[in-house]
């Protein structure tokens, strides 16, 4: 193996694999170092949605850009990626939440994202098994779901076809000054290092403000047709936005297999991979509230994973001012699958000096440089390595 690379990507999750593919396709000599298996961390633990989200204009711009990139790729994706444009229904319980539906529709429209408002009857027709009555919903038809481990593997294969090399399993213990140090005491040298190892990135660069935010998921046996769209409660916004409290929200997906994937939960401070009964209970009670028939379905597996959360809920994409050879591609929290392709574009643009299609400013890690503490978000010391199971 060549001892000097243009780019060393640390982490072969979906973000690292996408970065490698983009870099290699632009002619950069690229190596990816992975400590475990391709797509085995947060990539395997996540729900796998390709969604447009409007928490902030920057989030909307990034998710929309990336969703377009996925849509262009869809035809080429192998069947095991299970890409399905099932759409998202943001479901409203009452008139107050219908206000949010209308607000959301206007915001999406301003960004060129088509969406439709369903009234109570239309929602009942679209999702006959939802609780009744519901006030209505916002339908975003362009949202999709995928099976992320196979998506990451395919992106990695594409990268390798374009000349990238996958090295592993080898654990990275340090990065900086154009070097990536491995646990076998060897080194990889690269002009640039892209740190794309999700919540574990802070173990390599303790000063970056990325924290582990634990999530739980449950999947059922196959019940084709029980759910047709991704369903999200509008209360999700309230819980997902809170940076402190443990929270659960109703979010289910129909998988191509006919299984129903049930989420979601968000916790700070619990860094063990163990499934917590009380969190699973709370999450499933919420699911039963919205989808009463789910209670009679057979739950076959539960698992946990760790999102890489940042203080402003935007990812860290681009140069890290702490070391001129290091770029970050992390901090995607719950949107790493969606925004992986856009992240890869922005990273490769930065590496090749190309102009990006969207403004990169909101995602530049420089926004946190020099801050040891950010309001409401204490930066912890390097954290214990924890395993993420699928």
């Amino acid at each position: 193996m060549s001892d000097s690379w243009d780019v060393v990507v640390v982490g072969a999750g979906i973000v690292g694999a996408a970065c490698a593919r983009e870099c290699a396709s632009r002619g950069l000599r690229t190596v990816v170092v992975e400590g475990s298996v391709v797509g085995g961390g947060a990539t395997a633990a996540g729900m796998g949605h390709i969604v447009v989200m409007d928490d902030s204009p920057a989030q909307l711009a990034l998710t929309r850009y990336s969703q377009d990139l996925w849509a262009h790729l869809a035809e080429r994706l192998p069947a095991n990626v299970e890409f399905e444009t099932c759409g998202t229904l943001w479901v409203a319980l009452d008139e107050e939440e219908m206000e949010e539906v209308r607000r959301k529709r206007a915001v999406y429209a301003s960004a060129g994202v088509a969406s439709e408002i369903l009234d109570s009857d239309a929602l009942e027709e679209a999702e006959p098994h939802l609780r009744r009555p519901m006030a209505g919903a916002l339908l975003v038809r362009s949202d999709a779901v995928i099976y992320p481990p196979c998506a990451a593997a395919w992106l990695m294969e594409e990268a390798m076809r374009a000349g990238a090399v996958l090295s592993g399993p080898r654990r990275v213990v340090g990065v900086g000054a154009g070097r990536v140090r491995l646990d076998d005491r060897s080194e990889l040298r690269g002009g640039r290092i892209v740190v794309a190892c999700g919540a574990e990135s802070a173990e390599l660069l303790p000063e970056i403000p990325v924290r582990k935010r634990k999530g739980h998921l449950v999947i059922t046996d196959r019940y084709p047709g029980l759910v047709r769209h991704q369903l999200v409660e509008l209360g999700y916004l309230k819980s997902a936005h809170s940076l402190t409290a443990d929270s659960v929200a109703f979010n289910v997906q129909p998988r191509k297999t006919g299984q129903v994937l049930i989420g979601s939960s968000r916790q700070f401070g619990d860094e063990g991979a163990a499934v917590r009964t009380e969190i699973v209970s709370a999450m499933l009670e919420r699911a039963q509230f919205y989808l009463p028939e789910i209670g009679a379905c057979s739950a076959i597996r539960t698992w946990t994973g760790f999102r890489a959360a940042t203080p402003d809920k935007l990812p860290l994409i681009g140069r890290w001012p702490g070391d001129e050879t290091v770029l970050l591609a992390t901090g995607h929290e719950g949107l790493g699958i969606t925004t992986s392709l856009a992240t890869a574009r922005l990273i490769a643009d930065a590496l090749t000096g190309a102009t990006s299609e969207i403004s990169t400013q909101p995602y530049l890690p420089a926004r946190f440089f020099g801050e040891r503490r950010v309001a409401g978000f204490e930066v912890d010391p390097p954290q214990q390595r924890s395993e993420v199971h699928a």
Partner: protein
Amino acid sequence: MREEMRPVLLTVNGRSVEVAEGTTVAAAVLISGAPTRRSVSGEARAPLCGMGICFECRVAIDGRPHQRSCQIVCAAGMDVRTL
């Protein structure tokens, strides 16, 4: 096991099947001549382990899918559908 001759009448895929009391639903399905389920790629399947571990014996009973038929004893009037 006592095999009393009191028959139990149930339906498998809409067809009447008469079995001895104490017969498992899995046995009733096989007596009816049907496989218990189609696999995800469409193969016909029948019970493998006979002890509730392999899940090959899954059928719908009275409208509830994914019931392990080898662990359930037939009851009069049961509506069994193979999956």
